[in-house]
């Protein structure tokens, strides 16, 4: 089901999308290229493409998938051009094509790490410590022991952290009706 938004809603939605996905896309590109400028350029171009078809998406997951695909293709093209340029420079025989990197795991890493990071930052101190310790591999019992609180408290704080993350993102998931009320 397509969403129908007014231009102004679209603009707001679009800005939120950019803010929410920027770090994960930059991390994904920078880890592959090691090039800040290149990564920033690709993100800008990709968002301009996204703007043209923003009405065609009906879920945040769909938008993210589109963005990852777009930045990946753009990066591959740049790297290919770079290889060709280098090859002409050296007038060497064709190098074997670079196998496509394992995007599956790179996308997953960028997605998970960026969201975990977002989930932790902005949490109350106690909750943040619980989540950090949990993510470093401690069990609920070990965390409770470390912080001197009960196991139930740890569980409650973890749930609160996850809920907070959901809330941060929910307005993007089913954006149209909510944004309509807020911004029109």
């Amino acid at each position: 089901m397509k969403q129908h938004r007014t231009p102004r809603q679209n603009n707001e939605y679009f800005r939120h999308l950019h803010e929410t996905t920027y770090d994960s896309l930059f991390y994904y590109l920078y880890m592959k290229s090691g090039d800040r400028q290149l990564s920033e350029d690709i993100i800008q171009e990709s968002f301009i493409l996204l703007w043209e078809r923003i009405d065609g998406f009906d879920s945040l997951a769909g938008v993210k998938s589109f963005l990852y695909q777009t930045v990946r293709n753009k990066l591959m093209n740049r790297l290919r051009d770079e290889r060709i340029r280098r090859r002409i420079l050296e007038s060497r025989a064709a190098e074997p094509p670079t196998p496509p990197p394992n995007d599956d795991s790179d996308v997953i890493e960028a997605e998970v790490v960026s969201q975990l990071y977002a989930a932790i930052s902005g949490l109350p101190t106690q909750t943040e410590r619980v989540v950090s310790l949990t993510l470093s591999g401690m069990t609920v019992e070990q965390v409770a022991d470390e912080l001197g609180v009960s196991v139930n408290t740890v569980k409650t704080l973890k749930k609160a952290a996850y809920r907070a993350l959901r809330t941060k993102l929910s307005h993007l998931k089913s954006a149209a009706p909510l944004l309509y009320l807020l911004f029109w």
Partner: protein
Amino acid sequence: MEMSDYSVKIAEVIIKSKLDAESLTTAETAELGRWLEASSSNRELYDRLGDPATMAQFEHVVSLSDHRASWDAIEHGLRPQRQRRRLYRTVAAAVVAAVVVGATYLYMSPPTQTERFAANAPIYAIPQDGAAQAYLVSGDGERIALGGEPRTIESRYASMSVGAENISVEALATAAQEEHIEFKTLVVPRGGMFGITLEDGTQVKLNSGTELRFPERFAGGAREVWLSGEAWFEVAHNDRAPFIVHSGEMTTRVLGTKFNVSAYPDDQFVSTTLAEGSVEVAVSGATAVNTVLRPGMQATLLCGTQTLSTRAVDLAMVLAWQNGELLFGNMELERILRVLSRWYDVDYEYSGGAASGSHTFAGRAARSEDLETVLRRLTMLGGPRFEIVGRRIIVH
């Protein structure tokens, strides 16, 4: 379903499992289980996600870029489009805005490490301006540059076909009657890489900064060569004539097999790693000190100790250099720098405050990348800051 659709979806499940595993639905638990079991690398990735090192890396990387500057550039680009929905105008305006904003940003920001690097021409591993990949040196000191157009070098006893990346030795039929055996040395300078097929069909691939001394034809009971540096051997099987590699303090003896020998004078060790078959490794001049390796095992001799130690290794890491890659798992900075100095034909030094330290790194580098890119990644992985001055790396 596109792969990235699946990735985004499974990422959601992973986040849920990390933060609030109890709220996973049965379907999500099953989905996660399938993904974890699909490969061991998925399991490793899962364990790494959210650990302090990965989070710190993420924090560092995203601190390099400001999403607000990016948004401003995009918004500038989109503004005219909101009045007239015309695709190309929008894109053109956006591109111009992006360029202007990008240029302004670059102009106004203080010089960063990246820009300081950029003042140097990129340094690539493959020799530039037609520099030879290798030299063939005769016993009388004659030095022939190899590489470039295919050709044939004739000597009294052998004919050698030279290609861009390989030389192949063929003994002449008349040579078998001769007593005299002529030795040659294949020299691969820093930055190069070259292969040789010896007269018996044994293939050897030489890494940067390596020398191999070999006879034009093998005679007598053993096939012997002398190595300094690193090489991969695929030895042609011959029951009657063992193949022997002399590499400094270590001697490796085989009948027919595939193995790697690393014996750089500036490393304080010599090692042999076996991929296939079986080899016997001994301390030179003390053959009683020896060990027989099984595939996947590495024998190492610390120089001066006359003691061999063996251990199981990750073959992919040891052999990666042949594909132009350096894979390092817990490798010390000093060792990584030694490899880079050979690949890129550069030297390195530590500035006043820097200590070589025992900090180890895990990651990869490829020969096809320029030196700056590789060093920048090392910095990003938590390493020190590097500066390239001419052909020297300065570690800060």
